[in-house]
């Protein structure tokens, strides 16, 4: 019998494989800094040795990623490997160390100087390279400090207290069989990543990191939250059987792809994909998404010194619009950015609570009106070029005035786009315009908002965080982060009622829409469209296909009257289980 720990389910899936432990910098088993207590000559040599090691790691990473068929990412790692031994960077850092500067700050200063040179060029693409240089600098620093992240060599299950995005994103997907976190929340980046890869993820598993210390093999079941270290033969066979059953049910679900998503008695539900960049389009289309219910545009705005130009945005939006075509609408979410990320071109003061601060549509009143106008002009123009009707929605809408601001910006942007001489005649007549409902005030104002806009899209993650006053990133508040809480469901019912009066559709684009049990509850409450990661669509389609309208009406009534989220989850699970049997 192996050591058994139970955490919270994050992403469904079963995996058995070697343990790969990730320890965050400064915790526990890191090695002492090799450069401490030595002279300047040794410090310069330490910088050069760390840079060489960084280049070796990056080359190995590039090779592994290339073997997995991801050539574009491999090119980036290869360029980073060259930067790590680049004389411009390494000589500058070593010279600074030789002159007595502390090695870590010598490396950071040299990387910052190289990044600044690239960022100062007029070419937009080089801004991303500037971020790559800084990233290389940080990798060298990690090696100098002995905090270096040795990536798994063979396909493994990651065990960590938390897996930061920078590390999670670096593990080639084929080498990650599953994720189990001692901390973390079900909306953690690593969990979202796991769902998109179709691998299991478990969070909030007490004692996990210590228990993993002596273990070599681990079995995880993301649906039940079970983690078993060094499973015995019976346990191993049990997990293998679960894995077989799961892959069979996934095959069955995939077989439903060619039928439109509907309940057993024929009520249609529109299934859409959430995407974060043009690169996500092929997966969404393969999963038979009927469009993109959420196109996150932050990728254009992050990790750079200046705002993206209109032309750069037009190219990105056009690529997505063309990939989906005129029959599969793509809803562009205006940039959800603000004080939580230091974006130099926003000129925002630091805030104590950036998620309750100046962000998204609120930027218009804080000196960044032009940023939103530029984005809207780019959407108009890209839609004209791709020959599609543009769909746009604004996050962080709290009031009727916010919605009016969105409509005004939209119209002003259309005029701007149409008067640009080259574009005349190619701007669409209409932009389908919606607001996200993620602030409780917007849910309460739904009847009035519904008369102003063309659709609602509920962001369940933020609606839950703002309703329960519980930071979605704080693992200590996990029990307050479940969007199935009846308090959240009652707000969703208000939104649907308001939308129905005005005859506009309601979509949900939060994580809940991708969870089969959650999707059933949402459809039961009258939600028309579900938008989730492409990897979740098969499971949602299969869940909806086995229930009837009557069963859902009964589920809605009981869910709204339930005491807590666990009770609601059990009701939906029961309905699913009863139908599958």
């Amino acid at each position, binding site marked *: 019998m192996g050591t058994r720990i139970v955490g919270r389910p994050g992403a469904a899936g079963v995996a058995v494989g070697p343990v790969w432990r990730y320890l965050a910098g400064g915790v526990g088993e890191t090695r002492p800094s090799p450069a401490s207590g030595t002279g300047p000559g040794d410090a310069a040599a330490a910088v050069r040795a760390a840079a060489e090691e960084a280049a070796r790691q990056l080359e190995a990473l590039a090779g592994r990623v290339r073997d997995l068929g991801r050539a574009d990412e491999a090119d980036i790692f*290869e*360029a980073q490997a*060259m930067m790590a031994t*680049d004389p411009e*960077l390494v000589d500058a850092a070593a010279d600074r160390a030789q002159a007595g500067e502390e090695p870590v700050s010598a490396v950071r200063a040299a990387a910052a100087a*190289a990044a600044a040179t690239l960022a100062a060029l007029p070419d937009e*693409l080089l801004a991303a390279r500037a971020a790559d240089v800084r990233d290389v600098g940080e990798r060298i620093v990690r090696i100098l400090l002995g905090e270096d992240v040795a990536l798994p060599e063979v396909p493994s299950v990651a065990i960590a207290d938390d897996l930061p995005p920078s590390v999670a994103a670096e593990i080639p997907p084929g080498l990650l069989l599953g994720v189990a976190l001692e901390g973390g929340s079900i909306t953690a980046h690593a969990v979202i990543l796991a769902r998109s890869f179709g691998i299991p993820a478990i969070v909030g598993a007490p004692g996990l990191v210590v228990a993993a210390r002596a273990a070599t093999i681990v079995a995880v079941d993301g649906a039940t939250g079970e983690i078993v270290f060094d499973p015995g033969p019976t346990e191993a066979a049990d997990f293998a059987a679960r894995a077989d059953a799961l892959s069979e049910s996934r095959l069955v679900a995939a077989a439903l792809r060619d039928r439109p998503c509907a309940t057993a008695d024929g009520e249609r539900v529109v299934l859409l994909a959430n995407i974060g960049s043009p690169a996500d389009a092929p997966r969404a289309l393969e999963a038979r998404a009927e469009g993109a219910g959420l196109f996150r545009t932050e990728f254009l705005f992050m990790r750079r010194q200046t705002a993206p130009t209109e032309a750069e945005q037009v190219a990105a939006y056009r690529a997505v619009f063309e990939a989906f075509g005129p029959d599969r609408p793509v809803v562009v979410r205006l940039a959800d950015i603000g004080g939580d990320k230091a974006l130099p071109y926003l000129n925002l003061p630091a805030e104590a609570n950036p998620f309750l601060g100046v962000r998204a549509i609120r930027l218009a009143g804080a000196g960044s009106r032009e940023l939103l106008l530029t984005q809207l002009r780019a959407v108009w123009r890209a839609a004209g070029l791709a020959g599609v009707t543009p769909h746009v929605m604004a996050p962080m809408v709290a009031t009727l005035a916010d919605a009016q601001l969105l409509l005004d910006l939209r119209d002003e942007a259309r005029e701007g786009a149409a008067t640009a001489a080259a574009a005349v005649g190619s701007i669409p007549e209409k932009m389908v315009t919606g607001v996200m409902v993620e602030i409780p005030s917007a849910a309460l104002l739904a009847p009035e908002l519904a008369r102003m806009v063309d659709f609602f899209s509920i962001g369940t993650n933020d609606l839950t965080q703002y309703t329960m006053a519980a930071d979605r990133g704080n693992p200590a508040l996990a029990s307050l982060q479940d969007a199935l809480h009846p308090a959240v469901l009652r707000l969703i019912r208000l939104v649907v009622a308001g939308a129905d009066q005005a005859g506009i559709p309601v979509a949900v684009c939060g994580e809940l829409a991708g969870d089969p049990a959650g999707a059933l509850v949402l459809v039961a409450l009258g939600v028309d469209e579900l938008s989730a990661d492409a990897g979740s669509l098969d499971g949602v389609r299969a869940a909806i296909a086995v229930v009837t309208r009557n069963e859902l009406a009964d589920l809605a009534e009981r869910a709204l009257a339930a005491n807590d989220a666990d009770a609601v989850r059990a009701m939906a699970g029961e309905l699913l289980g009863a139908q599958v049997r």
Partner: protein
Amino acid sequence: MQVAELEVHNKSGLHARPAATFVKTAAGFRSSVSVENLTRGAAAANAKSLLAVLGCGVEMGHRIRVSAEGEDEEAAIAALRTLAEGGFGEAVAG
């Protein structure tokens, strides 16, 4: 010293993979090799450094001057010329 003036006519100029190909080729020679963006008019940069080459901001249609000095300078220039003519391994815009 050997010098050649070349036109960059591939789509992404000396960015991304073409820049890496250029630097790897230059680094394969013992001679010191430098590159100068004549269109932008910036100072000559070390052609064996990816950061320096990226910093030249060479885009499609720019002219560059490549100089090599050392025992294999002729071979270095010849190799870089062939590379530029072939679009640094990237499709050449028609």
